[in-house]
């Protein structure tokens, strides 16, 4: 993938000259093609790899949690309450903000331009900026572990949970919560930038003929998710600023002793937090809505219903946040209203499940790994949804609030739902970006290990929860009847870990020696399968003209009056092997300014905690990055492609 640059016209300035020199050196090692890239595919790969690394880190934290709780009295690992709280906090924060969200962003990046027939996103440099800000924020937050005296067993990470309820968080000693709130603030910038980017991309850059209702469902879900992101992130940003003022400048937003309101934090956190749940699940639903039709060789059943139920979920997600706060004493009227709205949000979700099932009905279902993971999503998400109904009922929830029953519920939705669907997406689209198939047999082994491990981990948590085991405790005594369920959970967690090793091995070996996939290994339906694997830098030699939903399928098959497909004689246009050097296609130039601008954020955040002088340094870097970005020409004339 070596990319060559024409030497730019010499400009004055020592710093710019030095940077140019660095660029030439890095180019020799091909590093620069990643660091300065604005190509949505490379950014998508970086998002995916980074999110997976954080998945392993968050998973390691999960294993520590499970080891600690394997037997009563923490006898297996012997963490103290302080260490446990910090590890637990980072597990939740990592999995939500550094794994599922960026992994979804990876798919947005990789797939959106390809599926809508575009050459890149609307704002390629902003896209690179999003990634670098995300990376910086994630590293910043994880560095907090090492700010304690770790050799003495003191971790420096945040300790107030991923929800950081005030006033526990506002009074937490040390810098852990400062790292948490500033880190989240940084990650919010990344999410906002990519949210706007994908909204503009989807609304403006669709291929001619692709009306909104001819968009693939994944694109619809990306659009809804992006809107949720741009409305939800500002809410948490405000809450985080208030927490920052309480902690760093002695404000009293959440301090009850000075008239502040602890519950204010919860309202804002969950007003963000519940749409956030759908930010995590809607992309997964989008992936499954692509995989199920392809592997059943049938169109998605009731496309408009699935679209509208997705939009309905988006709207309704703003009206259910109090179900996280039933026990805080908001009164029975508030609890009834939010109880009913919570019960009703199950309906559009149920509609989707029925539509997916109807998609399978009458299909010709290929039980390959992508489908198996999609089925894993469908079956496990259903369980998570139903257990959600049982504690949407306020009286019943009083018993389950903050017990392992809730832990079981949301892991069925977020792991059984999102993570399974994301793996489905990885198995499905891997060939598009590598030209090789992930080994299916190993994929099946991976699926069943993960599926069994997942259920062994999280199903017993329903039980320990109903037996009254509270969340977030680092130890429990042996007379509670929780032992057997916890031991099962711990065993399952290690099974999941083994399944991840299987996946990693499959990924690496298939990347090197995998079976060649061709352009369209699954008899795909959407535009990405009409172009070579891996796609050229410019994606589409010619921007396609779209005539129908599932455009590429309709290029391959016509339907007779009864809906029976007949292959088009000429075959698909998939196998264009003619050499095209992209001559005449102008793509955005690589740029290092997004990285420079993004670098400023962790520096400013570090300055907020340790020394305000660093804030000034960060501000200068930010100014330099944005200024350079603004005056840099967006396209740089002809470029070579490979």
């Amino acid at each position, binding site marked *: 993938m070596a990319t060559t640059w024409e030497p730019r016209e010499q400009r004055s300035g020592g710093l710019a000259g030095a940077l140019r020199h660095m660029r030439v050196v890095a180019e020799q090692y091909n590093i620069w093609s990643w660091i300065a890239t604005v190509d949505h595919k490379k950014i998508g790969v970086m998002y995916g790899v980074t999110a997976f690394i954080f998945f392993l880190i968050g998973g390691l934290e999960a294993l520590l949690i499970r080891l600690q709780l394997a037997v009563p009295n923490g006898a297996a690992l012997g963490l103290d309450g302080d260490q446990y709280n910090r590890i637990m906090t980072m597990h939740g924060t990592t999995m939500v903000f550094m794994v599922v969200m960026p992994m979804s962003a990876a798919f947005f990046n990789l797939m959106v331009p390809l599926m809508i027939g575009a050459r890149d996103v609307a704002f390629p440099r902003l896209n690179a900026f999003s990634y670098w800000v995300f990376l910086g924020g994630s590293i910043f937050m994880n560095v907090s572990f090492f700010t304690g005296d770790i050799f003495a067993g003191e971790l420096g990470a945040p300790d107030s949970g991923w929800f950081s309820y005030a006033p526990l968080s506002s009074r937490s000693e040390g810098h852990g919560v400062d790292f948490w709130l500033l880190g989240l603030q940084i990650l919010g910038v990344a999410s906002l930038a990519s949210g706007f980017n994908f909204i503009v991309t989807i609304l403006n850059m669709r291929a001619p003929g692709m009306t909104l209702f001819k968009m693939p469902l994944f694109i619809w879900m990306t659009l809804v998710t992006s809107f949720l992101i741009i409305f939800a992130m500002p809410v948490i940003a405000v809450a985080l600023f208030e927490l920052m003022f309480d902690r760093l400048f002695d404000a009293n937003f959440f301090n009850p002793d000075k008239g502040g309101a602890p519950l204010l934090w919860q309202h804002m956190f969950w007003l963000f937090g519940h749409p956030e749940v759908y930010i995590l699940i809607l992309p997964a639903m989008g992936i499954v809505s692509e995989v199920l039709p392809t592997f059943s060789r049938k169109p998605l059943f009731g496309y408009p219903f699935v679209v509208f139920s997705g939009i309905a979920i988006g709207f309704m997600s703003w009206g259910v946040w109090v179900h996280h706060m039933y026990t805080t004493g908001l009164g029975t009227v508030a609890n009834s209203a939010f109880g009913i709205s919570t019960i009703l949000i199950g309906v559009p979700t149920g509609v989707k499940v029925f539509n997916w099932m109807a998609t399978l009905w009458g299909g010709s279902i*290929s039980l390959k790994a992508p489908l198996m993971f999609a089925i894993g999503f469908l079956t496990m998400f259903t369980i998570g949804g139903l257990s959600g109904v049982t504690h949407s009922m306020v009286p019943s929830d009083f018993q389950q609030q903050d017990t392992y029953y809730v832990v079981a519920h949301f892991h069925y939705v977020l792991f059984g739902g999102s993570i399974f669907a994301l793996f489905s997406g990885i198995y499905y689209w891997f060939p598009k970006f590598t030209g090789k198939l992930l080994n299916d047999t190993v994929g099946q082994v991976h699926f069943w290990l993960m599926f069994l491990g997942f259920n062994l981990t999280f199903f017993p948590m329903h039980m320990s929860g109903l037996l009254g085991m509270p969340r977030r405790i680092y130890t429990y005594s042996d007379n509670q009847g929780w032992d057997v369920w916890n031991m099962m959970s711990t065993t399952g967690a290690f099974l999941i870990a083994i399944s991840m090793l299987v996946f990693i091995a499959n990924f690496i070996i298939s990347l090197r020696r995998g079976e060649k996939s061709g352009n369209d290994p699954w008899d795909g339906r959407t535009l990405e399968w009409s172009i070579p694997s891996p796609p050229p830098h410019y994606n589409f030699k010619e921007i396609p003209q779209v005539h129908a939903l599932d455009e590429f399928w309709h290029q391959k098959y016509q339907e007779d009056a009864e809906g029976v497909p007949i292959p088009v004689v000429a075959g698909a246009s998939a196998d264009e092997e003619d050499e095209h050097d992209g001559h005449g296609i102008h793509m955005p130039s690589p740029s290092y300014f997004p990285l420079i601008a993004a670098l400023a954020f962790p520096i400013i955040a570090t300055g907020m905690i340790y020394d305000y002088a660093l804030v000034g340094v960060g501000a200068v870097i930010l100014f330099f990055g944005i200024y350079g970005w603004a005056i840099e020409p967006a396209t740089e004339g002809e470029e070579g492609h490979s």
Partner: protein
Amino acid sequence: MMRRRSLARFLPLFVLLALLAMVLSGCDVDTPQNTLNPEGDVAKKQRDMFYLAMWPALGIMILVEGAIVAFLIRFRRRKGDGVPKQTHGNTPLEIVWTILPAIFIVAVVGIPMLPVLFDIGRAPKDTAYPIIVEGQQFTWVFNYPEIIKKADGKALSTFDEIHIPTKKEIGLTITSIDVIHSFGIPRIAGTRDAVPGQEELMWIKVDKPGTYHGQCRELCGIDHAGMLITLIAHDQEDFDKWAKEAAAGVKRSTDSGDAAVSGGEGGE
């Protein structure tokens, strides 16, 4: 042969069902914090509500999961299969499966929940026996306004151990002096948050004398796991006796072992 192999593929699902059976068999076991083995009025209503939602949910789960597995077996791709008929949807059918579940879920779960919610959530009656519950890192303090200590004329306090009379409504006032805690004794009543600066009213009622256990449910710091609650329900006669002795400063060994009745020093 083919059929058996495809069934074997779904063996793990049967393992799942076996797990489910294990779960259901564990419902009424005698463990200290079992939410499904209630003694208190509130907890009984809460358990009934849970079953009201759980049984239909379980039925739907088995139907849906079973259907998915059946579809996968029935419509799996066989050698020589052509491309199936392209069904795009069925609007009347989809309207039905949107409206029906909405009506079903509101009728079965939503409406029946409301009277129970208003009952559980009402303020304690005027005749209820008052106790003030105060969470603090990492102790529960229980103040009894109706038990005046002889030594200093102040209300009695106990730590981590709450004594109540049976067959009588208890009116709890729940608050916290530092961070948010949550007061719950699963066999008596579900949890209620103890929020600093806020006073929550809650009623409980227990008919059977005995010792019941609970613990803090909201993360409150390093020793969140150690913030245990013991509730001792006495019949009225025994309770009066306990109250009298406690007011006089007599220490009495209790069921939990280490006595937590405060005499003079901790009552402030």
